[in-house]
């Protein structure tokens, strides 16, 4: 595999029910910046129903979009996705393939990379082009304690990229580009049956601008009602530590942290949360952090903009009262 044969950046855009995941637009925006040095193209690849508007991806920064049309892509079936993506990558030979590091992206990308027998960098938070024209992939590891700078010897250079690391470009309705429709080459497999969608995340905490979160300082499930009231008042979402999720106070969809969701809101209010490294990993990049904890030595205070040593059950109701005035 030589570098000359491989050209351009391909963004594989995840979609569900015809709606493209916003991380795809962030990646297109970033890809445009990465190709500034060299006039090689930015491509989009989307697998989804015919009704999906692939033109958006052009407006977001792609020069060419491959749209493999089928309703079958409304199911998270890694095997069928893989079989339809491989021939396109083999034909187009992009130098770089970027995929959003969503759960589905992180399940699908390794299968594609292994099938192509190329390298894959996981869950990146930044990308750069080096002097030799190669991609530098920057990613946190060791439970977010370090940043590794990684380069790939093989082509395409593949990476999954975390949601909300790059800004979302404004769609430009004037942007011109080509949409190439493709028929799916494989539409069934008999190894994994997708029986049903059990639940759909109602709370998309990853996108919340305000998060009011509770930990072990809360005594029971009803305590979350008070936090919910504050979240509703502020237009936000309720978050939680793993310990209270495990205790059954609130569903996993609300868990913030290393093995939960990563959030980057304008405001994070931590109530009765000690600030374990695994919790901080999911929220430390919040713009403003307010922490309420009875223990003045709680580690959460070291990353808080405002810390209040006190009982959340006293502070939050008083805050609610003030805000309602």
């Amino acid at each position, binding site marked *: 595999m030589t570098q000359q044969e491989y050209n351009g950046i391909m963004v594989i855009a995840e979609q*569900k029910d015809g709606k493209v995941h916003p991380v795809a637009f962030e990646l297109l925006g970033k890809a445009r910046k990465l190709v500034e040095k060299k006039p090689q193209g930015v491509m989009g690849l989307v697998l989804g129903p015919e009704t999906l508007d692939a033109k958006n991806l052009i407006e977001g920064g792609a020069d060419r979009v491959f749209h493999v049309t089928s309703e079958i892509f409304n199911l*998270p079936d*890694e095997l069928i996705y893989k079989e339809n993506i491989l021939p396109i990558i083999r034909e187009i030979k992009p130098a770089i393939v970027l995929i959003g590091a*969503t*759960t589905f992206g*992180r*399940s*699908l990308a*390794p*299968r594609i990379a*292994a099938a192509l027998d*190329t*390298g894959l*960098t*996981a*869950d990146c938070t930044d990308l750069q082009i080096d002097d030799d024209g190669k991609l530098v992939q920057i990613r946190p590891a*060791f*439970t977010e304690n*370090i*940043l*590794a700078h*990684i*380069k*790939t*010897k093989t082509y395409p250079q593949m990476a999954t990229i975390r949601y909300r690391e790059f800004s979302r470009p404004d769609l430009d309705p004037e942007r011109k580009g080509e949409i190439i429709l493709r028929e799916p080459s494989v539409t069934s497999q008999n*190894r*994994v*049956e*997708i*029986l049903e*969608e*059990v639940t759909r*995340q109602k709370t*998309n905490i990853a996108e919340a601008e*305000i998060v009011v979160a509770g930990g072990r300082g809360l005594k029971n499930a009803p305590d979350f009602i008070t936090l919910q009231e504050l979240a*509703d008042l*502020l*237009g936000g979402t309720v978050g939680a530590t*793993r310990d209270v999720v495990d205790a059954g106070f609130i569903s996993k969809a609300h868990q913030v942290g290393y*093995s939960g969701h990563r959030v980057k809101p304008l*405001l994070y209010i931590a109530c009765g949360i000690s600030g374990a*490294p695994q919790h901080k990993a999911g929220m*430390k990049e919040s713009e*403003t*952090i*307010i922490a309420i904890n009875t223990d*003045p030595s709680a580690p959460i205070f*070291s*990353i*808080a*903009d*405002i810390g*209040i*040593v*006190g009982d959340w059950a006293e*502070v939050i109701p*008083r*805050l609610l009262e*003030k*805000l309602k005035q």
Partner: protein
Amino acid sequence: MRIIVLIKQVPEMDRVKFDSEKGVIDRKSAGVEINPFDLNALETAVQIKEQVGGEIIALSMGPPRAEKTLREAVARGADRGILLSDGKFAGADTRATSFTLARAIEKAAPFDLVIAGEMTVDGDTAQVGPQTAEYLDIPHVAYVTDLEEASDSSLTVTCNIWEGSYRKRMHLPGLITVTKDINFPRLPELKNKMKSREVEICRWDFSTFSDNLSPEQTGLKGSPTQVKKITIPPPIERKGQVFSPEETDEALAAIEKICREKRVSGGQS
């Protein structure tokens, strides 16, 4: 049912020290333990074995000291352990790790099910499970949160994927990666603890694979990705203001102000 559980030895993350100036991880600062997610993988295997019977093999690639990890796996319910250890395997990225694990799983065949953790706490990539499945040409289901039914020919599970959760039925052989939510790993039982001290852990080195693995396919040589540099961001510290219990009134005024500034339209007024 023959189940292979993939187990990685990792540093104790709560203890390990990072030198932000030199950009190094001081691995000596901490002991080692089983990757926490792999305990859930092992517990899943034990529960399946309890239902349908069979054998559990714990498989790990790592330095010789990882043998201890496999003994712990036996104490926690595995029947035996295989350690892949050789200088030629060292420095592997996820591609080389998965490729080597896949070749080892083929050697340990027949197998029905491979179970991996969702991710490790050191490499953090969550890639080895699905990559190994691809190199074995078997299906996988990632981020499994619930095991509903196991039979000799299939597995019905719920997985957390695509901004929701889905029930899937996988026909075996296949691979699953499990999250922390799937179960609470039980503690080692006394009789297994005894067994773990005596059991022989198979040691497979590169020569074991003379027929199905070339030196270019494993270890550093078989790794397309390379860590060029490590930087350790200084820990985020905010020179925040901390209000004592006597200052609660001032504190409330301060946070009320922030809340009013940041309140999102759409919030109730």
